[in-house]
Structures are given as C-alpha cells and as structure tokens.
C-alpha cells in the first residue's frame, strides 16, 4: 500500500542555510499492516507524514500509495489521491468547529468519491457516537472529538491511515480506548496504519515499534 524510497526534505533557515528535516532511505507497508514509529517532538515526524500524505512535496525520493507515485504528481492530483485513498488523524483532531459531528465525518469524503451520509452516520455509530450526530465539536468531550476524527479519517474507505500523535491530547484511559478503536477500525477496513508518537503507553500497545530516528537519517545528525 505504501512504499517510500530515498525521501528527502529540507528547509531554509533564516540565515539562508538549508537544513534536512527528513531523510528516509526507504520502507514499505502492506494493506492491513501497522507501523508505529517512536519520535520525539521536533524530530520531523509530522513533516514526514505530510510528505507521505502529499501535503508537502519532497525534494527527492518517491512516495508510492497504492502503486501511484506522489512525487511526480501535480498538487491537484496529490490532493485528489489524498481525498480518495488516505485518512489523516491529527493530534489536535482538527475538527471544523462550525460543522456537526456528522458533517465533519462527511468532509472526509467530500473531496473524493462523494458524500455518503448513511456511511458517515454508520461510522459514528461504530465509534459510539450514534447519539451525537448533530453535536458540534464544542459540545463534545475531548475523547468524543477524537472519535469523530477517527470516523472522519475512515470515511473515504482509505487504503492508508496516517496518525500523528493521535492520543497526545487524551488522558490515559481515553488514549488507550482511542488507539484500540483506530486499530480495530483500520483492521475492519483493511487499511494500512502508519502511526507516529512519542508516548510510550501508546507505543507499548504495538507488537513492533521502530524509532523514527532509525529510518530518518536527518534526525541522527
């Protein structure tokens, strides 16, 4: 589902010097497979996920999602690919405050193959929010907001789910439940899961965890 090769991204400092943030030699992830990456804050893991998602364009290297190389695509095609094949769970959930829970989940499909309201409602049922469809994010607890974000990430039936510190804003109990939910729903949908976190409790739930620094040469310098 995901194959990364020779991926490099650098940014210019205010002094004009270019600093490499991401330098990943390569790895791959099959459909239904999980990968948990351990990374400290500022290690470049969010930039790495943005490169994988096609939000940022790499300086070098390739990112293949479902056999399509993002690096060669123009921005609009990358947007389309992300809308159709990827789900993204953010640390701060990034729900739209003016949209209800149901509408937020619908946004997960709005830019891809189209909105399926019944599926959106079904997903919210699945994450235990069937009774909160019309609630706005401010009317939901932090744990409930996280579950809406999970439902939204899975709304477009993605082949690849990216999770950036998905439990960073939750207490321990909610974090455990939430992570369990993400993994279950990904398994049910056959989606590959690429998760990055610095939280040991979160990472402890995965059988195998890799250090982001071990695959990102830029983080070792």
């Amino acid at each position: 589902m995901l194959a990364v090769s020779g991926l490099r991204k650098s940014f210019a400092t205010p002094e004009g010097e270019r600093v490499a943030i991401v330098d990943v030699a390569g790895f791959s992830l099959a459909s239904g497979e999980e990968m948990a990456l351990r990374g400290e804050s500022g290690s470049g893991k969010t930039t790495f996920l943005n490169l994988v998602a096609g939000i940022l364009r790499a300086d070098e290297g390739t990112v293949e999602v479902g056999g399509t190389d993002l690096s060669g695509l123009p921005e609009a095609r990358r947007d389309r690919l992300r809308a159709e094949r990827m789900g993204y769970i953010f640390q701060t959930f990034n729900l739209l405050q003016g949209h209800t829970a149901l509408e937020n989940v619908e946004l997960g499909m709005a830019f891809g193959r189209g909105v399926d309201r019944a599926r959106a409602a079904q997903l919210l049922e699945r994450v235990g929010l069937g009774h909160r469809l019309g609630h706005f994010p401010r009317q939901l607890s932090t744990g409930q907001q996280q579950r809406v974000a999970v439902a939204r990430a899975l709304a477009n039936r993605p082949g690849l789910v990216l999770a950036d510190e998905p439990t960073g804003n939750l207490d321990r109990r909610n974090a455990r439940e939430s992570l369990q939910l993400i993994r279950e729903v990904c398994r049910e949908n056959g989606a590959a899961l690429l998760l990055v976190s610095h939280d040991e409790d979160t990472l402890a739930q995965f059988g195998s965890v890799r250090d982001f620094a071990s695959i990102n040469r830029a983080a070792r310098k």
Partner: protein
Amino acid sequence: MALPRIVYRSLRQHALSTLITAGSIALASGLLMSVWMVEAQSRQAFLATSTGFDAVLGARGSKLQLVLNAIFDLEASPGNLSWADYQYVKHIPVVRTAIPIAVGDNLRGYRIVGTLPEMFTGVQIAPGRKFALEAGGRLFRPDEKEAVVGNFAARKLGLKVGDTFHPFHGLAYSASGGNDEHKDLFTVTGILEPTNSPADRVVWIPLHALQTMSGHDPKYATDVSAVLLQFSSPLAGFRLDSMYNKQGDRLTLAYPVQAIIADLFSRISWFDRVLALIAYLVALVAAGSVLASIYNSMSARQRDLAILRALGARRRTVFGAVVAEAAAIGALGAAAGFAFYFALLAVVAGIVREQTGVVIDVLAWQPILWIWPLAMVALCALGGIVPALKAYRTPVAETLAPVS
C-alpha cells in the same frame, strides 16, 4: 456537491456577520430599485396621462403650472380666461376639441372641477380609452347641480350614486375646521370607473354650476380656468403657440403637453440622481463590507481552510468556496432587497396616489429588477476575490503545524 455544503455551513457558522452584511446589501438594493421604479413609473404615468390633450390654454403665466393645474389637478390656477377667449379658440378651424374647465372649490380636500359633459364623451384619456361610468350611474346634466365622482375620491369620501354634498370654497381643506361651505347641494349621479390617472381624485360638476355657485363673484360667472385642446395636426399647435405666446401677451398656450412634462422631469431629475448615487454608494459600501467581513475573519478561517486542504480539497475549491460565500451573501442581500423594495414602493405608491392620483404599480416589471440583484451578486463575488486569494495561498502544513 462539496462546495455548496461548505458555503452553507460557513454562512451558518458566521450567521451574525452574514445577516448584518446581507442586511446592508438589502437596503442598498431595495433603495436603488425603488428609486428607479418610482422615477420610471411616474414619468411613464405622467406622460401617459397627458396623451388625451395636445395643449392647454390659460391665463398668462407658467406653462408648467397651467399643465399641472389643468391636467394633473395639482397646483393653483394661474388665473382665468374669459368665455369669449374660450369661444374664440373653440372656433379656430385647426382646433378639433376645446373643453373648458373651472376650478376653485373642493370636497373635503378633493378638487371639484367644473366642465362640460363632452369631457366624458369625446375625449380619450389614453390611446383607445375613454371615461366610463360604473353600473347604475349617469353623467351629470349641464344645467343641474349634479356630480360625477372619480373612483378614488368616491372611495375615500364614501360617496355613492344618490348621495348629496355641499362643496367647500377654495382648493385647500382643513380637517380641523374653519372651511367655507357653499350652500349649493349637489347630488352624485355617477362614479367613474378607475382610470389610474389624476381624474380619479376629482369631483366633476357642470361648468355652469361651478361658475354660478353661491359665494362666487358674479363678475366672473362666465370665466373659465383653462381650456383643454386637441388639434387636428401638430402644425396647428405651432401656429397657435406662435399666436398666443409670441404675438399675444394675455394668454399662455402650454404646448406640447408631453414636452412640458418631460421638462419637469428633467428639472427634478437631480433628485433621482442624488438618490441613485446614494444607493450606488451604499451598494459599494455593502460590497466593501463583504470583503472586509470575510477578509477579517480569514485569520480565524485559515485553520479551517487548511484542514479542508489536508482532507483533500484543492486550492481552487477553497478559492471557489470563499468567492461563492461572498456571492451567496450578495444573493441573500439581493433577495431580502426585494422585500425592502416592495415595502418601500408600496408606501411610496400610496403617497403618490394620494397626492397626485398617479398609480404606481408595485408589481410592475422592469429590467432593473434582475439587472441590479445580479450586479450586487457579481459585486460581492468580486469583493470575495481578495480573501479568496488569501485562502488559495493558505500553507497547509505551516497552518496546521503549530498546534499539531
């Protein structure tokens, strides 16, 4: 499908600023359409009203005053002319019709006009249209104290066939009293069907009855206020114009009536222009406020836009969403502007009808009624382009990074 949903939800989210901005657009839109329609319809109505007559002959004075007094039943008469003057003009071969009128009395504020029965039988009030009486009525007899009442006046005065009344002296009537009532008792013999012209506000009586009414100076018992004329050819008008206005110095011939009315409108057109200018300025301010209201909220919206982009929305989608939102505010305002327009026009039409008898059709259609709302939507969409460009340039990773 994504775009309308995003626009609708954004409007809902910013409901207060949406309503305030749309409200100001509604005011601008309604005001401009009202000004335009009142001007267009008044001009049309005044010009159409005068089509029955080519000219008015009266005492020496202002042509405009003569026309307003004799045809539109407004203003005071500039003076009288003698019966001999009427007889003279009536017998000029190029004069097809000459109908004398006399004014000077009222019935509770509605003007009483003395005239001949020919006014109702021989004159077209509009092309192909003559005065007609409602069922059960008949014309007054020239030598009796009888009256035919205009439709609007009859309704306002509560008069019906068989009712009687005493006229009041003068053209003005004071509701608080002190009016000088004539002893003569008139009987209503007919109610005119609506003509949508100033004639609807007039109480018509025989010329002789007005001239000889008790309390009027017998010295002027044969004078008339004006003579309404129809000519057999336009050339006749120019001939008489030269005869009365250039060679004579006692009488005035107001000819051609339509040109005099057109001149009146051109003289007061500055007022329309000022109102239209105000409306244009309000419209510009409204479009500016659309720009400012969306632009000012862009900092708050930028995160939302970045989230949409992260979910797969293209740059042109978020650009389109912001422009569409601005256009939607314009459309809401333009739609609400129609409500304001109808309310304002209904009030203005009532006042114009009460004061002049001219009917303004509130439901009449003019191209301005679709051109202006569309222009408002386009103007607002244009105002949305600046914030839309900001939305277009939203850096997704940077905008989401500080918190994520």
